[in-house]
């Protein structure tokens, strides 16, 4: 009998080809081995993706998961994750989101939703507790994400329904399309296009049940203590509630680590104009929180005057300020607010979008792209109008450059040729976000070894950047970052927000994580047990990538720019990741992981130790 707290014990399966729905009750041992969230998703993905098929193959699953913590009172436990084979990277992809969709999924009685097949015509799915319907979405197809969700709220007469949907980009299979959930995004890796490939426009959720924790009294007392700690912590209690993540812009610029003009530099001389300070003073109108979160880091902004008057968005976050701002040499904050909203409405990832526009600007700068290729757009760094126009063209999948950039930077560089690959700043096909690999050694390891590619959500920059770990030290960073990845793997399985990492643990799995697991699920696991679970999940993701895209040690690398062009100015002037440094990092990381140093594959012994015996033949035959 499945009796752990935090779980519903049920996964909802929907086949859009046949219209069949089914409740899957998973076993106790499945929860013990994979914990939840991305752990469940990684296992299901490995087992159910038809090997080496296209990400848009209808039989391949698109998975929405909550975690055992989701929907409980635990601070930072509002989040969910979308998981699938990425059409951008052809590998494992998970993309986390906030808001209240994941909690509502639990309240409806499900830990996850596994969608397979392809509807004959555009549809949306309505889930209200155990009632599941697939409905015609002809009236929604072609609408942007905000209009889609508002229309659904009106139709259902319920402003509090949780919704997930795609915009026009997802419908048109733009490979950097995301899923929008309320005003939050599951941004990375193109999973919105996978949703579009299934003709699924939206999901509407309403649940009426609760979530039971194993030790409710202890959870309440622990929650109270955590909220107090978060309030008294200057990061979670003061800077994030007041400024949100945009406060990092000026700090990273001062540190010489703010990617500028497609990472040609890491100092933006106009950073003040896209700063959190300016955003707060001139544009922020209110705070926003995910369900049950005491931090309230989200910021609603509004442009009141000028050419972008009326533009309003939730954000932009630090990543977006970088992507559409300094990375494009753009100092017009109003245009970034406008661009952020446009990205959300089209349903495209702001990080990848800003990254590919910055890349195209450098192509224009170097003559690889000409005015003829851009339909006359002066695609110069700093041209905010060009940034906004290119967002529209990518979102619409307009023929020409819009179509090309929507395929992602790796494919765009392959198509454009010449020397464009030298400044195509991606890892394994996923565009690098706003954290310096040249300035932060651990981030270099994080990007090179992430199972997703260019993300700062597997490896993390935080501990080195804030001084908890020595940023100037090179030796040991491979092993260090594996421990960080173990922490993020467990947090993405439970699922916990990264904004709480300073409270729960920055540099690895801690007793706090073990306490959370015990309070909520009742599993009495030690830190070492959680490390084993994290390793099992990570090795599954690695095995998926080995199978699907032939991943190996050679794939664990960094963009040419980061390994051949030292940072030209600022506090990090001269820093670069040399080949020797990368090889050392990889050797350290593989040693810690129990991977073969020549191939980068998990060894047989490692797979047996993690009870992943069935992967041995897949990898080593």
């Amino acid at each position, binding site marked *: 009998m499945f009796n752990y707290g935090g779980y519903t014990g049920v996964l909802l399966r929907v086949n859009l080809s046949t219209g069949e729905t089914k409740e899957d009750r998973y076993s106790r041992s499945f929860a013990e081995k994979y914990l939840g969230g991305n752990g469940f998703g990684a296992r299901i993905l490995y087992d159910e993706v038809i090997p080496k098929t296209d990400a848009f193959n209808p039989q391949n699953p698109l998975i929405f998961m909550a975690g055992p913590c989701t929907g409980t009172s635990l601070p930072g436990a509002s989040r969910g994750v979308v998981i699938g084979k990425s059409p951008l990277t052809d590998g494992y992809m998970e993309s986390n989101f906030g808001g209240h969709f994941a909690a509502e999924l639990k309240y409806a009685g499900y830990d996850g939703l596994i969608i397979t097949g392809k509807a004959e015509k555009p549809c949306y799915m309505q889930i209200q507790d155990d009632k599941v319907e697939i409905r015609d979405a002809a009236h929604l197809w072609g609408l942007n994400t905000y209009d889609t969700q508002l229309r659904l709220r009106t139709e259902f007469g319920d402003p509090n329904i949780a919704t997930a949907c795609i915009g026009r980009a997802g419908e048109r299979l733009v490979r950097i399309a995301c899923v929008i959930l309320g005003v939050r995004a599951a941004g990375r890796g193109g999973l919105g296009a996978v949703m579009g490939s299934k003709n699924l426009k939206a999901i509407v959720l309403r649940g009426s049940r609760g979530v039971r924790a194993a030790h409710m009294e202890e959870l309440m007392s622990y929650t109270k203590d955590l909220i107090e700690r978060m309030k*008294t*912590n*200057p*990061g*979670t209690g*003061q*800077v*994030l509630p*007041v*400024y949100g*993540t*945009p*406060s*990092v*812009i*000026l*700090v*990273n610029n*001062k*540190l*010489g680590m703010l990617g500028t003009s497609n990472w040609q530099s890491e100092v933006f001389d106009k950073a003040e104009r896209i700063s*959190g*300070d300016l955003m707060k003073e001139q544009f922020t109108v209110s705070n926003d929180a995910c369900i049950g979160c005491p931090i309230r880091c989200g910021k609603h902004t509004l442009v009141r005057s000028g050419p972008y008057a009326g533009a309003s968005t939730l954000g932009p*976050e*630090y*990543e977006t300020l970088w992507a559409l701002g300094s990375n494009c040499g753009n100092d017009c904050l109003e245009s970034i607010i406008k661009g952020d909203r446009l990205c959300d409405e089209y349903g495209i990832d702001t990080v990848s979008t800003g990254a590919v526009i910055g890349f195209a600007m450098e192509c224009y700068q170097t003559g690889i792209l000409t005015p003829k290729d851009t339909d006359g757009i002066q695609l110069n760094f700093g041209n905010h109008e060009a940034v906004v126009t290119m967002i529209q063209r990518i979102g619409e999948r307009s023929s020409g450059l819009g179509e090309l950039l929507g395929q992602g930077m790796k494919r765009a560089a392959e198509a454009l040729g010449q020397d464009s690959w030298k400044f195509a700043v991606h890892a394994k096909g996923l565009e690098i*976000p*706003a*954290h310096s690999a040249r300035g932060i050694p651990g981030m270099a390891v994080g990007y090179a070894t992430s199972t997703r590619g260019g993300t*700062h*959500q597997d490896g*993390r*920059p*935080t501990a080195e*950047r*804030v*001084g*908890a*770990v*020595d*940023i*100037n030290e090179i030796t040991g960073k491979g092993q260090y970052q594996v421990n960080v990845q173990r922490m993020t793997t467990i947090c993405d399985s439970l699922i916990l927000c*990264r*904004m709480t990492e*300073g409270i729960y643990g920055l540099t690895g799995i801690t007793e706090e994580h073990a306490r959370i697991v015990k309070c909520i699920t009742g599993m009495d696991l030690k830190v070492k047990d959680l490390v084993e679970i994290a390793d099992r999940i990570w090795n599954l993701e690695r095995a998926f990538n080995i199978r699907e895209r032939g991943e190996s040690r050679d794939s664990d690398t960094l963009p040419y720019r980061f390994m051949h062009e030292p940072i030209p100015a*600022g*506090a990090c*002037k001269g820093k670069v990741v040399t080949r020797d440094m990368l090889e050392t990092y990889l050797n350290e990381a593989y040693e810690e992981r129990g991977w073969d140093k020549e191939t980068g594959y998990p060894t047989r012994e490692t797979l047996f130790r993690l009870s992943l015996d069935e992967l041995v033949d897949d990898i080593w035959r």
Partner: protein
Amino acid sequence: MLVKVNLFANMREAAGKSQVQCQITEGLTLRQLINKIIEIYGEPMRAQLIDHTGSLVVQAVLLNNRILQLDKNSDTKLNDGDEISFIVPFEGG
């Protein structure tokens, strides 16, 4: 001796400006500079630099062009003309 101190976000608000010039005595250390800043700007600044357990919240500073961990460098002596930035204790996204 005069040093420049760069402040961000809530620290900037506590001081009312993003950069302050501090007159210091010879031999003043990084840790002593933090005490001096708290002394000048009072409780609002203390709340940004010290947590409820009395521990230092800021763990890193940029001293001129070098990022330093405070716990290993709190005794570093400052020189005339030094520029110090206090790093906010979290990362974006």
